């Protein structure tokens, strides 16, 4: 019981919760504005992690700088997906229909390609590096510098995004597109511009999360998929397209997972995550998809 009440466990829960919130934030932004469930989202986390790893081991660039590099790289990928796929879909309705019907399989294919390209280029060996791993003790809670940094950056990006959506004009138009796409266009929101910038932002956020993960976890070509699953769980619990609730749900999942593992054993982590995933999908009324098609 003592371990359950310790600040140590709460800190661990906050660190993983903030990461989950961050990964899910990117997925949710993209889903909300483009109605695209990007199953390759976790692989962007993997790309961010490799970016940080190679930057520090080849060029001695610290992860703090890699945050920017990874964000830019993933944003570029987002732009490529938008320009390559979505512009074309707008021009050809038959293509759009086909992509919509098969979108998940399509992006699963992209995910398989990214994972295996990474495996081919970097081999499947798991990699890691050491950065800010000195232990800081505060009020009998021991934490490493990198975890503290991870928590700080993830929380800052999440809440920064929420504030931006609340107070900036572009944030308003983004929320308008999520809520009523047609109506937003009527009142003068440039749908194309919002969608393109959102996919770039959503992908960039995943890249940032990847850099944060790489500071504390092993990096492998196949590390991304669990993050995709976690992000799905988070945004389904929080409500698809509901950005604020998604952030909250991310922190909640971190708490549930950390305390769940503390009560059982780490071997149950995957069962817990996948169990939650299947559970929320089954309990969700099927209405979520019909709504997605209409808008």
């Amino acid at each position, binding site marked *: 019981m003592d371990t359950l009440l310790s600040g140590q466990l709460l800190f661990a829960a906050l660190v993983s919760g903030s990461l989950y919130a961050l990964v899910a934030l990117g997925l949710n932004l993209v889903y909300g504005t483009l109605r695209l469930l990007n199953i390759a989202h976790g692989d962007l986390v993997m790309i961010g992690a490799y970016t940080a790893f190679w930057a520090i081991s080849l060029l001695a660039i610290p992860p703090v700088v890699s945050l920017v590099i990874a964000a830019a790289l993933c944003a570029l990928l987002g732009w490529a997906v938008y320009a390559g796929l979505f512009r074309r879909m707008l021009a050809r309705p038959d293509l759009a229909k086909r992509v919509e019907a098969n979108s998940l*399989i*399509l992006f699963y*294919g992209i995910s398989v390609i990214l994972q*295996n390209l990474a495996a081919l280029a970097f081999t499947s060996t798991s990699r890691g590096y050491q950065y800010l791993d000195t232990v800081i003790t505060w009020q009998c809670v021991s934490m490493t510098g990198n975890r503290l940094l991870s928590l700080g950056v993830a929380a800052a990006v999440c809440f920064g995004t929420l504030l931006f959506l609340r107070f900036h004009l572009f944030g308003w138009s983004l929320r308008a597109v999520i809520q009523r796409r047609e109506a937003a266009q009527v009142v003068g929101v440039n749908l194309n511009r919002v969608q393109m910038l959102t996919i770039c932002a959503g992908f960039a956020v995943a890249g940032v999360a990847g850099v944060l993960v790489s500071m504390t976890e092993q990096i492998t070509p196949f590390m991304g998929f669990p993050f995709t699953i976690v992000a799905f769980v988070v945004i389904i619990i929080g409500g698809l397209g509901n950005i604020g609730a998604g952030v909250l749900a991310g922190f909640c999942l971190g708490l549930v997972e950390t305390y769940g593992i503390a009560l059982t054993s780490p071997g149950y982590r995957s*069962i817990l995550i996948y169990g939650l995933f299947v559970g929320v999908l089954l309990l969700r009324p099927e209405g979520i998809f019909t709504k997605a098609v209409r808008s």
Partner: protein
Amino acid sequence: MILGVALAVFGAAVPAFGSPYLMGVVFQVAMWIALAQSWSMLSATTGYLSLGHAVFYGVGAYVCVLLTGTIPFELALLAAAAAAALFAALVGMPVLRVRGPYFVILTYGLSELVRHVVMRIESALGSFGRMIFDVPATEVLLWWMVGLAVLATLGAYAIRHSRFGAGLAAIREDEVAAETVGVPVTRLKLLAFIASAAIPGAVGGLALLRTSYFEPAQAFDPVISFTIVTMALVGGTETVRGPILGAVGFALLSELLWSSLPQLYMIVLGVTLIAFILFVPRGLSGLVGRIGRAG
């Protein structure tokens, strides 16, 4: 139909004068035909794309490994098929309420959940992979596998050309309208789900007998599900010969690449899948049909 018969004759001829290597290739080809045809019984007819058929394969393999040695292998294979069908019947009702991309990720998540549960059970039992001895001769297994491929092909043909298949097609076109005019959608979907699960169960059992080694991470490998979907979609889902074309093509390609360059094989799989979804929606079967009409 003709393809099915030709395949049966080919498969029958092989054990008589084939080399062990050739028998291995035919076994693989027949296995993927059986899996892709079974998948098409649900997914091609109703448009409910399953990305979790590995779960039926895995359940079949698991049941078979538990039963081998206690009963004749023919009965163990029947039990494997029955167990997979029973599993489909149990989860079918809630799972089939979920539509579109959510059905795709739900089947994937369910398959992963079962994989992790079985892995947990096996490690709790202190088993790290089970070896089995006294497996039937390769020729016998090959006969069974070719039989399953023919059975699956005939089954897929029969379903498409029956009242049952017409009901499933109505579900694919417009489920709400189908229900309104009196199609018992829930019952039909469940029956199609069970039908498409049974043969993969037996296939999993046979594949286990051939490798004589069971390891849950491999038996429930999500790559199996992805390969089935790719083969069926690339082959073409509109005709019965489509999955055969896809399965033969990729099984032969995997003979070339899998052992030396598995990552490259997966990349080719992903790229082909995406290219076919975007540019060749009717698949290889549609291409062959077009050439046939032109010539």
